[in-house]
Every structure is written in structure tokens, then in C-alpha cells.
């Protein structure tokens, strides 16, 4: 049992943290968010320079091989920094899908492009009818290749991606297909998300070459593993936001004077901040547990831990977010302080990659099936 981090891991986190603290302030970010593109290619290039886009690529593939723990530490920093660039979508989730499935030259081509920041890829999986609803998108053999048909909903960072990694039902199980964003039959409707990021609803009716499919045979197990790692990293991102919003709230309570006293002296508010603190600490514990579970051999144990973490961190996100706004009073309602931006990212976190209800159900079913 060891809750310490290696020096390398700490350095990774420090590098991204310092980078965001010095060059990614609220105003700078607001300009990116308000811009046409919704992201900064320059920031992206700098993240690549820091090596962060190769963070979770195995050393055999030329990456850093920082694994789930390194990804967790960096994700905490991207959350605390309210980063809107597609670190999670491309460098974590899509990179993991490629790492688990793609072979040969295709693998090298994709991973190199992702690691260098030259291209962005995103996993297009959810379809709008619930996080783990059965796939309606299908891929069937047609001529020399595949006919891929279906819709994907609110795919984060799709508007800036070169590749969509699209999940579909095939005759032999689940397939994941690399689709060029500009290909014929790929219809992207870009949307803004409530946490200031960009996403797209995607309609697909596209003919793909045979080798568009990553890996052979049913990819369900690999996909499940990649999604769970994505959830663990998203929990870490939310944890970073939680840390920031709690610190901001406590600081505000120390400084804001009403009725001749800092409001942090009022016992009712003290007890509520103590509750916020405890929720953040439980969220931290569960983020650690989820990260640790990413390397579990037993998929049921992994799923239970990941869902448990998503529930606890989401509940902390909702409660701590609401309380932070409330304790900031009117100021918490404005766009001016970071608390409102943290609130929105926490709300988006709660709704992404499975809601509280959906993960409670998966946890219940996994644990109960165990007879535990």
C-alpha cells in the first residue's frame, strides 16, 4: 500500500500545473472559449512539447508510458486549470483505444500523429440514449470495405479532430473504425458544451476501406477497458476542479466580511465547508481507487471500482459545486470568478460518460452478481 508518487510523476504534474497557472488564466481562457475554433492550437503544440500528448502511450510505442497514475496526476492539473483543449479526448481516450486495438503501421501512424500533436482523434461512442445503451450504429461489409451508418451524440472535441474512432455493431461484435472527419458521408453539427468546450453531433453514412477497422474481432473488452480508463481520468480532472473550487470558497469565506465578521467565522457555514472538504477527500480516495483499478485483471472488479468512483466524484461535484456558489453569494452567480466556471465543468463532468444513476446501476449489478 503506497499513496506516494514518484519524482517523475510529480514532475509531470508540476510541469502542466505551472504551464497552466502561468499562461492559462481566466481571461486568456475566455478568449479561447469565445473564439470561432474553441481551442488554441498553440496551447496544444505547447502541451505536445511538454510531452503530455505522449503521456499514456507505452514506451514500446515511443511514448512516456506514464500509465494510469501519471494520467491521473496530469488530469488533476487539466481540471484545476479548466483546460478546454482535447487532452482527455485525444491524449487519453482516443490514444488508449488506438493503443489497445490498432496494429502494425496503422498503430504507429496514429500514435505518432497523436503524440506529436499533429492530429487529434476522438472516440465517437455514445448515441444519446444513455451511456451504456446498446449501439445502434452498424457496420456491414460492402464491396471491399465497410458501410458505417448511425449517429453519435455530443462527441467532445470532434470539431477539431482529424479522426473519429467510431464504435459500431458488426456481425462479430463491436468494431471501432477510424474515420477521417472530412470524409464523404460524415456530417458534423458542432455544438458548444455547457463547460465551454466544443463537441459535435455526428451523422454517419460512410463507406470505409477494410483497414479502417482497428484490430480484429470483437473489440468490446478493449473498448470497455479504454472507456473505464477514460472515466478514471475524467474523475481526476473533476478532482482538480473540486480542489480549486474548495480552495476558492474557503479563501472567499475568510475574506468576505458581513455583519462585521468574515463569513467563514459563522459556524453554520464552517460546518458546510467541513462537509465540502470531506466530499472532496472522498472524491480523491475514489479517484485513486479508480486509477488503481485501471490495471485490474478482473474486468468486473475494474467496472465496479470505476462506477463507484464516478458516482462518488459526481455526487461531490454536484454538492460541492452548489455549495461553492451558495457560499459565494451573489458573486458566485457571476461569470467573473472562477467558481462559476468550475461549477459548469463539474456539472458537465456529472453528465459525461455515464450519470450517477447509470453508474449506480452498473455498480449494483456488478457487485450483486458477485453475491457480495
Amino acid at each position: 500500500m503506497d499513496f506516494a508518487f514518484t519524482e517523475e510523476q510529480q514532475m509531470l504534474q508540476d510541469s502542466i500545473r505551472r504551464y497552466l497557472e502561468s499562461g492559462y488564466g481566466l481571461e486568456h481562457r475566455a478568449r479561447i472559449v469565445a473564439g470561432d475554433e474553441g481551442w488554441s492550437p498553440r496551447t496544444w503544440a505547447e502541451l505536445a512539447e511538454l510531452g503530455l500528448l505522449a503521456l499514456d502511450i507505452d514506451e514500446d510505442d515511443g511514448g512516456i508510458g506514464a500509465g494510469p497514475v501519471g494520467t491521473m496526476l496530469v488530469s488533476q492539473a487539466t481540471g484545476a486549470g479548466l483546460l478546454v483543449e482535447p487532452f482527455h479526448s485525444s491524449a487519453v481516450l482516443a490514444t488508449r483505444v488506438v493503443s489497445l486495438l490498432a496494429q502494425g503501421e496503422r498503430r504507429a501512424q496514429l500514435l505518432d500523429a497523436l503524440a506529436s500533436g499533429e492530429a487529434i482523434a476522438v472516440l465517437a461512442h455514445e448515441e444519446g440514449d444513455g451511456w451504456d445503451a446498446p449501439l445502434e450504429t452498424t457496420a456491414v461489409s460492402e464491396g471491399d470495405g465497410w458501410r458505417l451508418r448511425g449517429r453519435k451524440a455530443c462527441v467532445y472535441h470532434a470539431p477539431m479532430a482529424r479522426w473519429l474512432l467510431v464504435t459500431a455493431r458488426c456481425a462479430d461484435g463491436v468494431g471501432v473504425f477510424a474515420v477521417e472527419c472530412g470524409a464523404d458521408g460524415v456530417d458534423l453539427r458542432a455544438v458548444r458544451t455547457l463547460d465551454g468546450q466544443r463537441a459535435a453531433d455526428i451523422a454517419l453514412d460512410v463507406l470505409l476501406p477494410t483497414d479502417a477497422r482497428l484490430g480484429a474481432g470483437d473489440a468490446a473488452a478493449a473498448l470497455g477497458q479504454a472507456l473505464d480508463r477514460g472515466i478514471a481520468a475524467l474523475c481526476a480532472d473533476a478532482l482538480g476542479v473540486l480542489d480549486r473550487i474548495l480552495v476558492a470558497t474557503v479563501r472567499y469565506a475568510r475574506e468576505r466580511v458581513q455583519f462585521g465578521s468574515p463569513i467563514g467565522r459563522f459556524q453554520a457555514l464552517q460546518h458546510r465547508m467541513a462537509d465540502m472538504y470531506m466530499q472532496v477527500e472522498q472524491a480523491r480516495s475514489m479517484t485513486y481507487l479508480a486509477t488503481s483499478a485501471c490495471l485490474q485483471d478482473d474486468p468486473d472488479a475494474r467496472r465496479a471500482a470505476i462506477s463507484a468512483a464516478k458516482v462518488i466524484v459526481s455526487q461531490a461535484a454536484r454538492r460541492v459545486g452548489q455549495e461553492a456558489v451558495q457560499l459565494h453569494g451573489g458573486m458566485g452567480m457571476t461569470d467573473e470568478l472562477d467558481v462559476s466556471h468550475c461549477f459548469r465543468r463539474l456539472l458537465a463532468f456529472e453528465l459525461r460518460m455515464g450519470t450517477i444513476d447509470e453508474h449506480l446501476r452498473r455498480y449494483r449489478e456488478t457487485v450483486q452478481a458477485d453475491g457480495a
Partner: protein
Amino acid sequence: MDLNFSPEEIAFRDEVRAFLAAHLPEDIRDRVRRGDERHVSDDLRRWQRILHAHGWGAAMWPVEHGGTGWDKTRQYLFEIECAAADAPIQLPFGLKMVAPVIMRYGSQAQKDRFLPRILDGSDWWCQGYSEPGSGSDLASLKTRAERDGDHYVVYGQKAWNTLGQHADWIFCLVRTDPAAKPQRGISFLLIDMKTPGIRLQPTKLLDGGFEVNEVFFDDVRVPVENLVGEENAGWTYAKFLLGHERTNIAGIGASRRELARLRRMGREFRRHGAPLIDDPLFATRIAQVALELEALEVTNLRVIFAEARQQAPGPEASMLKIRGTEILQRISELQVEALGARALAYEEDVDGDGEDVPRAAAQYMNLRKLSIYGGSNEIQRNIIAQTILKL
């Protein structure tokens, strides 16, 4: 004890329903339903004129000033029916806030000048109470007004001014005696928004919208005849106003409307192929908040009844405010839960496009204000503990 409305009250409710069916313009109703506030100024003024033409411009005013003279029960029924019909709210700043102060403490000239124009929708009022440093602790306000001949010269800054961008007038608390104790040196001024030196700066809110402003006063000259009552006695009028603000504070009408919308969403949205409402967990959460709303409705009627009999009209309002805002916030939260990942797509400060979807998340964020504004729920709990429980 009889919890039923009287036959006269039922007849009144039917009359309101019939009026709303006949006179609420369809375009306004549709915009209210969608949460489209692009024409909010026109819509609210137009609706006020329609109500006024029917003699219903001011449900809560006495007849002598052109009000309906309705009792609290009828005012309550009127509010519920208006909300159920998706009529716009009537902004409280003129009708429920400054008007009662003018009626009670204003000069005859002020009454003659201001009240009719509030009633017929000519004047839109806004509020100048809170300041950046004075939220819950209102008496610590700093905006000052110095007498200069026939004028006060006002200098300072107000915050959380709702919809002042459309307003003709603002009522302000200003400090006229900096040497006196905080509550003693405050006066109550009526200020024309067109006066030189007033500048509005919109405050972007959590949901991305712009419904409140900061108002800067840079040596704004206000004629002394626009002082209400006596100089330095404004704290008395301010408290009187805050008491009046609390009419229909429980917001039953709004909660009922949003609960109906939530039920609609539960039937329309599917999760894993089945209507959400078939999920026992979700259905139970809806039932729980529906129950709490029922309890609050009866409590509200109890307070109305007690008020009519001159019993305890005061601190019980704090309970209505707390529970009313908690319930509406909870309904709104459940709407976002009903949407799930559908709520992620979000355009700031763009109005509804006829769907429940985009509004629900914006409303959820916007309604976080309910437990903060109008006397935060923490302040209300202090009031209950100290005034009712005598702790």
C-alpha cells in the same frame, strides 16, 4: 377547518382561467413557455397593459389606487393560474416593491405621478439596494447622496440590479449621513434612469445570460422632491419594502409549472429504450418533490389564512422562501437529470428554440440564485431561529 376553496373562490379561479384563455397573447405565451427572453421588455409592458385594461393591473393594490382589492387568497389563485397558463410574471420592482412604499410613505405628488404609470405599464422600475460589499448585510451600504441646493448628488455603485437595462426608474438606498450609525443615515431616493451620470454595466452570470447589472452613479443630480418620506429614515421604508416583497414568495405557481414540465420530460425522454418515468428511482424522486410541493401549498394557504386574521404575517414568510426555493431548485435539478448527457450541448445567452432541452440546463444554473437573492436562505434560517424559535 376546511381546506377547500369556497364556491366564490372557485368561480373567481374560473374567471381568471377564462380571461387568460381569451386575453393572453399566443406569441407571448409561447415565448414564456420556451424561456425566450429576447422580447422581454415589450412582452412585459404589453401584458401589463392588457391586465390593466381589464382592471387587473395590480392584484395586490387597494382599490383606491387602481388595484383589484383582492384578498390574499384571490391573489394566490391569480398567481397560480397565470403561471399555469404560461403568462409572463409581473415584475415586482414597481408593483410590489416601490409602489407600496410610495403609497405608505410618499407624498401626494409622488403618488399622483408614479403610481398610475406603474399600473398601466408606462414605467419600468428597477432596484438599487445591494452593493458589491453589501449583500446580506444591507445596512453597510456605501453609495452616498449629498444635498446640494434642490438636489441630491449621488455617487456610488449598486449591484445585482435586475433587468435595469429596460428600466425607466430606479429606487435607491443611499447614505445621507455618513456619521450616523449604519441604519440611521440611509435615505430612499427615486431616480430617473435617464439622468446624466448613470451608467449600467451588465454582469454576465453563471448561465451565460445577462439579467443583472452593476449601476454606477457618478455625481448624479436627483431633485429633492424625489426623496421618499424623511431624510435619514430610509431604513424604515427599506424594511417595509422587503416585507412586501415576500408576497407569493413560495413561488407555488412556478414550481407547479416546472413540475409539469419535468413530468412531460419524464414521459418524452427515453433511457435504454424505456420512458424515463418507468424508472422507479426517477419516478420516486418526482413523487418526493411533488409531495413536498403539496405540503408547501397547504403551508402557504395556512400563512395566508393567518395573515388575513391579522395573525403572524411575519417570520413564516422565511419558511415559504426557503422551502419554495429549495423545491424549485430541486425540480430544476431533476430536469437536468432527466436530460442527462443531452444537457451538455449548450449555447450561452441564446434563447430556447421550442424545446425543453436547452432551457433546462440554463434554468438550473440560473436558479441557483434563488437561495441567494431576496435574503439568502441562510439569513432566512437565522430569522426562523431567532424570531420564531427565540434562540
